[in-house]
């Protein structure tokens, strides 16, 4: 009866099942089972995207309806707790005017990252002073990343845009003085954290640069960048 018994045996059945899953037609147990199947199977993931993308064209039919005004405050209360006395950074970072100005600026991503760490009160003042950010971009490339260094050995990366061909990866490099050190391959689809190696940390700081190059799948085979730089940015102090 269920799909577990016919893996691979009935591709059409599996495809229809993914369509039913995307439409939300399956009962709770089957829904969970199909979700697990999709998570394990790249072909089914493509199938899920296929349906999601196509059905999304119907989204225009959902009529816009204004939300009662008090709900935003409730959501923010749920997410951020009660309004607190202004923290050191809040006023500046949370300012809409700032973001609008930043967005309008010449480098359309004059982007500053707020890491979760910033919001944690237990961070020492010293750690705060070494937090760094970089906006990575390059002319003629649509790859744009934000990098945030938490002051404690971890770099957090988020892709704003960009895509790679199936047989290529983006590799991240730390550029310091004359040395270029690989920080590994970076997935484009998710926010990730990269440990900054002691070797890099030795000279790490304002003035260091980060760059992304296009490399063969799995990263440069030689340990030296072989592909074009698709995004680059200098690290600056927050």
């Amino acid at each position, binding site marked *: 009866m269920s799909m577990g018994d016919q893996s691979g045996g009935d591709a059409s059945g599996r495809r229809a099942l993914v369509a039913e899953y995307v439409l939300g037609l399956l009962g709770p147990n089957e829904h969970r089972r199909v979700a697990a199947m999709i998570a394990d199977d790249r072909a089914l993931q493509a199938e899920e995207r296929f349906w999601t993308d196509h059905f999304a064209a119907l989204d225009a039919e959902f009529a816009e309806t204004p939300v009662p005004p008090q709900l935003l405050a409730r959501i923010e209360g749920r997410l951020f707790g009660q309004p607190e006395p202004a923290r050191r950074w809040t006023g500046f970072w949370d300012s809409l005017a700032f973001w609008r100005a930043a967005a309008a600026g010449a480098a359309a991503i004059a982007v500053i990252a707020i890491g979760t760490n910033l919001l944690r009160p237990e961070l020492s003042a010293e750690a705060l002073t070494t937090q760094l950010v970089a906006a990575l971009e390059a002319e003629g490339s649509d790859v744009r990343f934000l990098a945030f260094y938490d002051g404690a050995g971890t770099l957090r990366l988020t892709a704003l845009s960009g895509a790679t061909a199936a047989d290529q990866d983006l590799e991240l490099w730390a550029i310091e003085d004359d040395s270029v050190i690989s920080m590994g391959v970076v997935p484009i689809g998710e*926010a990730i954290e990269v440990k900054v190696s002691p070797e890099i940390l030795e000279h790490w700081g304002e003035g260091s640069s980060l760059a992304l190059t296009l490399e063969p799948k799995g990263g440069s085979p030689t340990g030296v960048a072989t592909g074009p730089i698709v995004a680059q940015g200098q690290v600056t102090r927050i």
Partner: protein
Amino acid sequence: MQTPSPEIAELISRCALRDRAAFRSLYERTSAKLFGVVLRILKDRSEAEEAIQEVYVKIWQRADRYVPGHTSPISWLVAVARNHSLDILRARRPVADDIDTALDIADDAPNPEQATADRQVRGQIDSCLQTLEPDRAEAVRGAYLDGFSYEELAQRHSIPLNTMRTWLRRSLLRLRECLSA
């Protein structure tokens, strides 16, 4: 929506970086659309008001899962709202699982990756739905836009549940063929 998508995509990415101003901005620009989604599926205003709050909590928590360039940002947000509403409905429906899922249909459909590679999917679904019998197209739309279950669809179309499922699955495979053509 009138809002240009790249801007929405950036707002989502900033949410992933815990930027609260970006979150508020995102809410201001998209909440009417998403409220339309939860309201249409849940069909109950106070329930929808509760659900929309949970939807934005999820958006904040899952912003780092959004893949720019992969899905349009509005579609991604609508999917969060739609799936959340469907989860609510699913949790309260009687368990009617394990209807026979096997279907004996020849498998010669093309690979979906090629079909969606260029992302020129807008409008295609409408013309392909028109190739189905009107009541079947209506059932597919009802499932997507109103979150109707098989039980509800069977009732609305006055046919037995199993017949409904067989017919809809066949329609989905035909739809898939048309969309991949």
